[in-house]
């Protein structure tokens, strides 16, 4: 059981800045995120796209913003629990106990949900009857590539993940790459490499095809792919891999007893607390009259939520407002030498 003052759910820009705001007022926190990296939507959806509305930063990419925020909170040596999704939260006496899908448990006096539109999950095939094969022969990520050795693998997708794995697995497996159109959106060098392997007959590539159906009882034996012109092609394969990027799902958040409005959590605008005492929501996931889904609004929300957490973490102390320019305590927490 990891004990801390506040648990932050979501390592996007808003969660990161909230680490800072908790840190300067002397509160400790831990951060959980379902992605394998820090940065949330900024890093997953638009790492290279310029953002123009961060105050005092005329232009920066999602990746630069993330890196700057990580730099800004370095002094607090915060633990990030990546690749983990919070599954359940419950109140035991005055503390919140949180459990993730990996079994990690936290005890904190408050929780800040900065989860954007929810957690990122792989996009799946739409074909019927694939559920029973998912996780066995139909996969959306690869943990152990040795299982594909000397097998036939049919890969769907047109981005870098699909291309990289097609190239990598072609060394040890029979690889068939299927994509819905002729253009691949992966890096040019990767696309060229895949085409080269096709010429050398090391990869089969079918474009303008999508998965139509799967056949097999216990195991998949044959899949059918459908061309734009409706013609069907049969493929015998051992594995089917889909790389269609990630989608955001609200996930278990709707089971925590919080009030929800569509996919957002209503909060008060004094400290961004939800209907549950000690649980706060900030950033895209919170809603209130006048809410703007902007990163800068999330920073403000995090600053106030952090102060809201103070009374739960230190019930016997009175929070005192201080500026970073003049407070010795804050400077010492930031590790600034005077």
């Amino acid at each position, binding site marked *: 059981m990891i004990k801390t003052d506040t648990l932050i759910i979501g390592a996007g820009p808003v969660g990161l800045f909230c680490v800072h705001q908790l840190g300067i007022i002397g509160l400790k926190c831990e951060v959980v995120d379902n992605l394998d990296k820090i940065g949330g939507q900024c890093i997953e*959806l638009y790492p290279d796209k310029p953002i123009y509305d961060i105050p005092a930063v005329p232009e920066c990419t999602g990746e630069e913003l993330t890196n700057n925020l990580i730099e800004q909170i370095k002094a607090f040596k915060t633990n990030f629990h990546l690749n983990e999704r919070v599954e359940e939260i419950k109140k035991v006496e005055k503390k919140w106990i949180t459990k993730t899908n990996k079994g990690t448990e936290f005890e904190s006096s408050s929780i800040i949900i900065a989860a954007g539109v929810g957690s990122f999950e792989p996009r799946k095939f739409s074909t019927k009857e694939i559920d029973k094969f998912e996780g066995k022969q139909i996969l959306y990520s690869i943990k152990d590539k040795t299982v594909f050795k000397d097998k036939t693998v049919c890969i769907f997708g047109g981005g870098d993940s699909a291309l990289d794995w097609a190239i990598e697995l072609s060394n040890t497996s029979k690889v068939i790459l299927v994509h819905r159109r002729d253009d691949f959106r992966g890096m040019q060098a990767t696309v060229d490499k895949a085409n080269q392997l096709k010429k050398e007959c090391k990869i089969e590539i079918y474009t303008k095809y999508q998965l139509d159906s799967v056949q097999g009882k216990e195991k998949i034996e044959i899949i059918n792919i459908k061309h734009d012109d409706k013609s069907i092609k049969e493929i015998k394969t051992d594995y089917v891999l889909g790389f269609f990027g990630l989608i955001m799902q609200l996930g278990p958040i709707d089971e925590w007893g919080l009030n929800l409005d569509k996919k957002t959590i209503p909060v008060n605008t004094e400290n961004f607390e939800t209907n549950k005492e000690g649980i706060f929501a900030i950033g895209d996931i919170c809603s209130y009259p006048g809410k703007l889904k902007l990163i800068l609004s999330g920073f403000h929300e995090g600053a106030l939520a952090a102060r809201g957490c103070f009374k739960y973490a230190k019930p016997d102390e009175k929070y005192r407002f201080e500026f970073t320019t003049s407070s010795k305590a804050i400077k010492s927490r930031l590790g600034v030498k005077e």
Partner: protein
Amino acid sequence: MPKITYIEISGKFQTIEVANGLSVMEGAVQNDIQGIDADCGGSMACATCHVYVKEEWLDKLPKKEDGEEDMLDMAYEPKKNSRLSCQLIVSDELDGLTVSTPSKQG
């Protein structure tokens, strides 16, 4: 104001007046049309505002910009007449446009 018709997967349809300059996605979200999620808020980063455009409108719409086709790769059951509704900006020329929503978004 131009009228846009949204057909939900159930077959239920609504014709709504959408102001010039708004996107077809915004018209849907502001009027609680089911089946258009628009998780990223219109920055062409999520493909959850995916719609099918009625065939006769395909050629009348502004061409896809770079990136829209890439995002459609990730959409749920993309077809030839797939578009991202956040990229369709309403104008007088789009008066009468009909779009239908997919069985789900992602």
